[in-house]
């Protein structure tokens, strides 16, 4: 059935687009793209599920196949017009993730999270920087750089390419209803790593810019970073307080209110130079750990989170620059292998140093492999920061993201299944319900 519906949807879309294939998207184009992406990615996700692959890989694949690099059913302006969903999706996913981060329950895992972040993530960033340095002969944009400059660029690229994807981690956890030490540790690490990567990018790119002769103001960078991180946390606390009050005192129309809040976080937060992920995460953590309305928050977010996630991942697929792979497939493949090896080995070492459970040591690394929004955003930022060679360098980074986006979710899914945490959230809910029933009976 999924295949038939996909074919029919594709046929209709092709027929409609043939009316004006090269025309501007206009209002009809945006709406058409939204509806088509939503329906197609949904059925592609179902198809992938039948193949025992993650649904979100199906969403991404649908975007790739229908997008400008595939069948061209979605033009570039159409895909660009759907970009607005990205910020909302990130805020929504972070709010969901935050509302599930119970600090008391996470406390025993903090040691593992710290060590895996330090050894796995930071260690892999160093490895990636070394790999870029060594790959200089096959990277034309590095050819004309001086030694110091090349080192600086390699370090910045190492930071860009180590970035993880909290969105994919949360989406897979929700899809598989996974829970346990591996799931929680991975979530903690990707959130912490997200923060770390933002800080490291700001610092390394400022230093690199200074080496290129551009005026780099360390004080200004520190102030910007402080505003972005502390400001985001402060804004998140404010948002969390407002949400808690609303859910407790008003409750009616909560789904709409929550969605509008994510829109505010994404759109207005971005304009105020806050990190939407941090704002939403802080809000969610506050609601979970300081109030009693976390369950209501989670429940009310559900209706709109699926459509937003579907469009988010499909648009991510449609935005993939697969053409970048044509020119940079060799270094990109090497980098992907180095990154994968570094993260898997580093997280294993980190988990052992922290004395974590064997499952965490064996499987947590797979959760660090997926890449999506942050890596893409940093790639674009890199290109903007270094306009002389940024475009050429972004072919490499986008190629790496493309490969990781396609392969890594399936690997993490497989890891969650193998470590036995898939479906455990449902089992725990059932047990809790049974215990509650038992209490009521007595």
């Amino acid at each position, binding site marked *: 059935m999924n295949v038939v519906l996909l074919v029919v949807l594709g046929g209709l879309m092709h027929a409609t687009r043939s009316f004006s294939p090269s025309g501007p998207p206009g*209002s009809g184009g945006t709406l058409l793209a939204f509806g088509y992406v939503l329906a197609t990615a949904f059925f592609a996700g*179902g198809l992938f599920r039948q193949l025992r692959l993650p649904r979100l890989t199906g969403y991404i694949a649908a975007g790739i196949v229908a997008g400008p690099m595939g069948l061209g059913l979605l033009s570039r302006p159409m895909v660009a017009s759907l970009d607005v969903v990205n910020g909302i999706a990130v805020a929504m996913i972070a709010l969901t993730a935050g509302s599930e981060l119970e600090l008391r329950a996470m406390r025993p895992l903090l040691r593992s999270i710290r060590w895996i972040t330090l050894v796995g993530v930071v260690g892999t960033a160093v490895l990636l920087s070394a790999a870029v340095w060594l790959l200089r002969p096959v990277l034309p944009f590095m050819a004309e750089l001086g030694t110091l400059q090349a080192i600086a660029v390699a370090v910045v690229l190492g930071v860009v390419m180590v970035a993880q994807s909290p969105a994919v981690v949360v989406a897979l956890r929700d899809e598989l209803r996974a829970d346990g030490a591996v799931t929680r540790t991975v979530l903690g690490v990707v959130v912490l790593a997200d923060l770390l990567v933002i800080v490291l990018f700001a610092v390394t790119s400022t230093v690199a810019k200074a080496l290129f002769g551009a005026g780099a103001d360390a004080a200004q960078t520190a102030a910007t970073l402080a505003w972005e991180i502390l400001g985001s946390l402060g804004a998140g606390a404010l948002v969390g307080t407002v949400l808690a009050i609303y859910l407790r005192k008003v409750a009616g129309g909560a789904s709409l209110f929550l969605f509008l809040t994510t829109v505010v976080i994404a*759109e207005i937060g971005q304009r105020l130079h806050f990190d939407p992920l941090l704002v939403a995460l802080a809000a969610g953590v506050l609601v979970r750990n300081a109030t009693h309305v976390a369950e209501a928050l989670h429940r009310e977010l559900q209706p709109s989170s699926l459509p937003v996630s579907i469009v988010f991942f499909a648009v991510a697929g449609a935005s993939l620059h697969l053409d970048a792979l044509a020119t940079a497939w060799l270094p990109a493949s090497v980098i992907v292998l180095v990154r994968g090896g570094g993260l898997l080995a580093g997280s294993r070492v980190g988990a052992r140093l922290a004395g974590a459970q064997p499952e965490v040591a064996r499987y947590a690394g797979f959760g660090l492999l997926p890449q999506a929004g942050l890596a893409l955003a940093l790639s674009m930022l890199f290109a903007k920061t270094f306009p002389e060679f940024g475009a050429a360098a972004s072919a490499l980074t986008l190629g790496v993201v493309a490969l990781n986006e396609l392969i890594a979710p399936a690997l993490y899914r497989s890891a969650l299944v193998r470590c036995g945490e898939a479906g455990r959230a449902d089992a725990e809910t059932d047990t809790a319900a049974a215990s509650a029933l038992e209490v009521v009976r007595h």
Partner: protein
Amino acid sequence: MHHRGRLTGSGAAAARAVAASVAALLPALAMASVDGAPAAAVPDAPEVVIKTILAMLLLVGLAYLGGHPRVQAWEEKLRVSQVITAGFPFVLLGLVARHPAVGVVTAPVLAQMGTLLGFALGWIGLVAGFRFDARLFGGLPPGVARIVALATSIPFACVVGLTGFALLSISGGLGEAAARAPALVRDALILGTAGAMTAKTSARLLGTAGSASVLSRVARIEELAGVLGLAAVAAYFRPHADVGWQLPGTAWLLVTVGLGATLGLLAYAMLSTARSRPEFVVLTLGTVSFGAGAASYLHLSPIVVTFIAGALLANFPGTHRARLGAALHRLERPVYLLSLFAIGAVWDVADWRGWVLIPIFTAARFIGKRLGANAAAGGHGVLLGPREREALAVAPMGPLAIAIVVNAQLLYPDRSISPVASAIIGGAILTEVAVQLVTHGKLSTLERRAGALRGEPAATVDRSREATG
């Protein structure tokens, strides 16, 4: 029975979920439309963007509140229709938001609001079509078809004739060439189609009388005439005729029907696969967006395309009907209010031609409705008494009439449609005010009498009225 209750509960929950997510996604669509504007055209200043976003969010919140059951209960209590309580204020909000001093809806934002409008029209069309259950025609006494035909065609002809003449005069010539100008004929047809529509609330005039149900159904069947009129206008008066496929008008009409039917079948197949509430949300959103988007892309009417799909969905068997019906109904009014905001934002109040057309349109509609009611009263079949005739003659314009002009604005964004929009918006408000003034006392008296005769408490009468409305 138990099973039925459970199904209803699940339907209501799904409806809430769909309503919440669709309401929630409207600002995203609005934002998408704003973000999709050409970079040079959108003012990038953060304060401007933040102001626009906050205003849009406030608007969505207000529309949600405007559609709240409590607001509807107040309307029932005050015996006024939504055009007065919520509709007109939203048109005013649109006007205010457009004002340069407020600067929320700037020209580029306005140009890109089509995404939101397209979705709103698609939703309204699906709602109207979904009401077209085959049971609507069941138990109708013979002669109803004649009533519908006369009560619709005579006002249509009156409005087309009188406003056509007025448009001709305004355009500066009564010559044959001017009379054959496609834009003029198109505008007269749009005015006629909107003018022929009757609000289903007109059945309230009849209280609990059995004929109220018939009149309510007549008003719904009239919607079909409105949709047909809109389909014909969109097919035969093609906007940007030089773009895309070059087909004759009749072929475009067939394309419209084909697209609507295909969408209906596709939606049926898709909705049948939904296993959970979130999945149902995704597929409902996908259906409306895809259908309305495809129609807008082809420069067809989203209302017509989704109306056909909705009519098919209403008549196919399956568990989707309860869930979809509840969801569509729940969001009908907020979506309608948002489209009113948009029409307020594009309303060119400085265009004097619109103000001239308002009284002409209103008068032509009143005359046509009166003539139509009188003509329908005679003949064989159902006999219309004085009350039924009165109800038909003074009926206010329904939301579909407003949706038709919103659709016309979307199809023909040039300035030529501006007087038509003014005439229909102004006419709708004027008609509603006149109807309220004329019938307010009469309505109370009739309902009191009906309640007293049947020995029913007022609450029962209210419930009956809801059922007929």
